[in-house]
């Protein structure tokens, strides 16, 4: 089984105070920010590793490829995912300002045509732009089945299909998709029992959250291959569908009040905020 995990590098969410908007209002400046893999994509890497790797015995039943579209520095975040246990990396050089979900989806489609994976497993959205579109557009372009917001994934031992529990408003929806497919994951995919491939025994080492890059993993990752392409190499149509008119900072928060009783809260929600 071959899995491609698209991974975007995003500013560390802890840097929120450092984000600045350029004076013309056209861009978000990324100067001086720390970067990390988009958390939802890191969860997708974890889910992919749980699907095909047995960390207890080093047994593997598939390949995990981490693909990123970004500047040269994004190799760092790809290497990070390789240190977690993914097999190889792909970097497609591209500047954030030239990309929107449709350009990214078109680039991923080209990679899918090159690599013919059985599954594209990705985060439901990136925590910087929060578009939540790429997985859906990609599945549409490929004509593949899609299961978004996965909180659980179960596959039979022959890895022919996946039963996915999707986190939707008001509850869970369970769908079965045949491979090849596109699945996007939500946060609960990294709970200890969330991925079951009915082949590798439920791994006792599965902890809550994505795994650490272990020291041996980091050493191995040094030698793992990383392919580089440009959008041009892949023949990607780079026309953006989304035009950014301007960015602005959210209004500064005004001071809150601490209320003594729930009764008081209900009263003020009713009378002042008029939301009840």
């Amino acid at each position, binding site marked *: 089984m071959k899995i491609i995990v698209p991974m975007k590098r995003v500013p560390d969410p802890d840097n929120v105070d450092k984000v600045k908007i350029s004076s013309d209002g056209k861009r978000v400046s990324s100067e001086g920010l720390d970067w*990390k893999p988009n958390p939802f994509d890191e969860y997708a890497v974890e889910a992919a590793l749980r699907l095909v790797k047995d960390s207890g015995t080093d047994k593997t039943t598939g390949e995990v490829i981490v693909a990123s579209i970004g500047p040269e520095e994004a*190799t*760092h975040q790809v*290497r*990070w995912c390789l*240190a977690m246990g993914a097999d190889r990396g792909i970097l497609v050089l591209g500047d954030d300002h030239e990309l929107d979900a449709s350009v990214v989806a078109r680039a991923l489609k080209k990679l899918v045509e090159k690599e013919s994976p059985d599954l594209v497993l990705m985060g439901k959205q990136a925590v910087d732009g929060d578009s939540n579109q790429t997985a859906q557009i990609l599945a549409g372009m490929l004509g593949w089945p899609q299961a978004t917001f996965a909180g659980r994934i179960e596959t039979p031992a022959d890895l022919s299909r996946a039963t996915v529990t999707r986190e939707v408003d008001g509850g869970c929806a369970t769908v079965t998709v045949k491979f090849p497919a596109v699945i996007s994951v939500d946060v609960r995919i990294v709970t200890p029992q969330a991925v079951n491939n009915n082949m590798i025994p439920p791994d006792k080492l599965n902890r809550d959250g994505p795994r*650490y*890059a*272990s*020291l*041996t993993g*980091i*050493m191995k*990752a*040094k030698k793992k291959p990383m392919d580089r392409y440009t959008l041009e190499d892949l023949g990607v149509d780079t026309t953006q569908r989304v035009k950014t008119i301007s960015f602005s900072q959210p209004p500064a928060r005004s001071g809150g009040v601490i209320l003594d009783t729930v009764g008081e809260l209900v009263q003020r929600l009713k009378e002042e905020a008029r939301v009840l």
Partner: protein
Amino acid sequence: MKTPWFTEEHEIFRRTVRKFMETELAPHAEEWEEQKDFPNWIFKRAGEMGFLGITYPEEVGGSGCDYFYKVVYCEELPRSGCGGVNMALLVQSDMGSPPINILGTKEQKEEYLVPIIKGEKICAIGVTEPNAGSDVAAIRTTARRDGDYYVINGTKTFITNGARADVITLAAKTDPDKGYDGMSLFLLDTDLPGFSVSRKLEKMGMHPSDTTELVFEDVRVPKDKLLGEENTGFFEVMINFQGERLVAAISAVAGAALVLEKTMEYVKQREVFGKPLSKFQVTRHKIVDMLCEIEAARHYVYHCCWLFDQDKNPAKEVSIAKILSTEMAVRVINQCIQLHGGYGYMREYGIERAFRDARLATIGGGTTEIMKEVIGKMIGL
């Protein structure tokens, strides 16, 4: 940012260690401080994470990394918020076990070093005695040969991990009439009859860690537990000291830097006389002074780490590094308490704990005064 010391891989490892410290250890720091104890699973988890064998060769289960991975590890340790645990882990990886790596036979490494790196066996180093600290040659514990055994008698004190250790790398006199050239090292299993822990010592800081007094009464140690050759133990202990002092220096710098980081947050939000503390020039200058001291010590220590990675025995430089960094850490953290005012003195802010823990560093592993004597001798005074 590119530096001569740290590559991309070092920085990935830094995130791993930081995440581990912040999510698996820090939440328990206060509880362990209160209990004056910590659970032994920490060694196992540290072993699984590869923290206990960073620079050891792969044949014994280590990762064979360069020394700057160790630097990264020591720099992130203070984020556990628990000096006692950090000390226990460093004794395991950098004080008790290096002699086994250097001197051990294949069988000794298999039996002791491999499980120590996995965190399955806990180790301690037994050198200090009531009347012999840095004056190692004056130890009085004896190991008398009797057929296939050595019979060990004596006492040791200030032994970290002493109450929980499975094995102690023990220094004893095999020729009591001689000084430094009559000393040998042994691997002493703590389940042997005649070994006992006479006291767990109460300390100023490092509360979770067990610091003990040990007694050896006719402990019969099989002769194949002799580490290296008879009467050569002193030299190994002396070389081992460099590694111990270096990790102390790195951790001291990192500890001071972390306290300063917290203090900077504090002075920005704490208001007095209508404005944040940080808006007073005296605060700013104090903080910058501390930053200068930290950065100067940090880069001198990096230099020593590089030297250590090359030749293993830069005694003069490491001694300078230990003085610079540990004395600086005590000074800096003391000033940070001052900037916190009354809150700095309160337990709940954790800053007085950092001070109590850091205070040990100018004493343990060779006092500042001993370091000065070492340096004095080496520069021909």
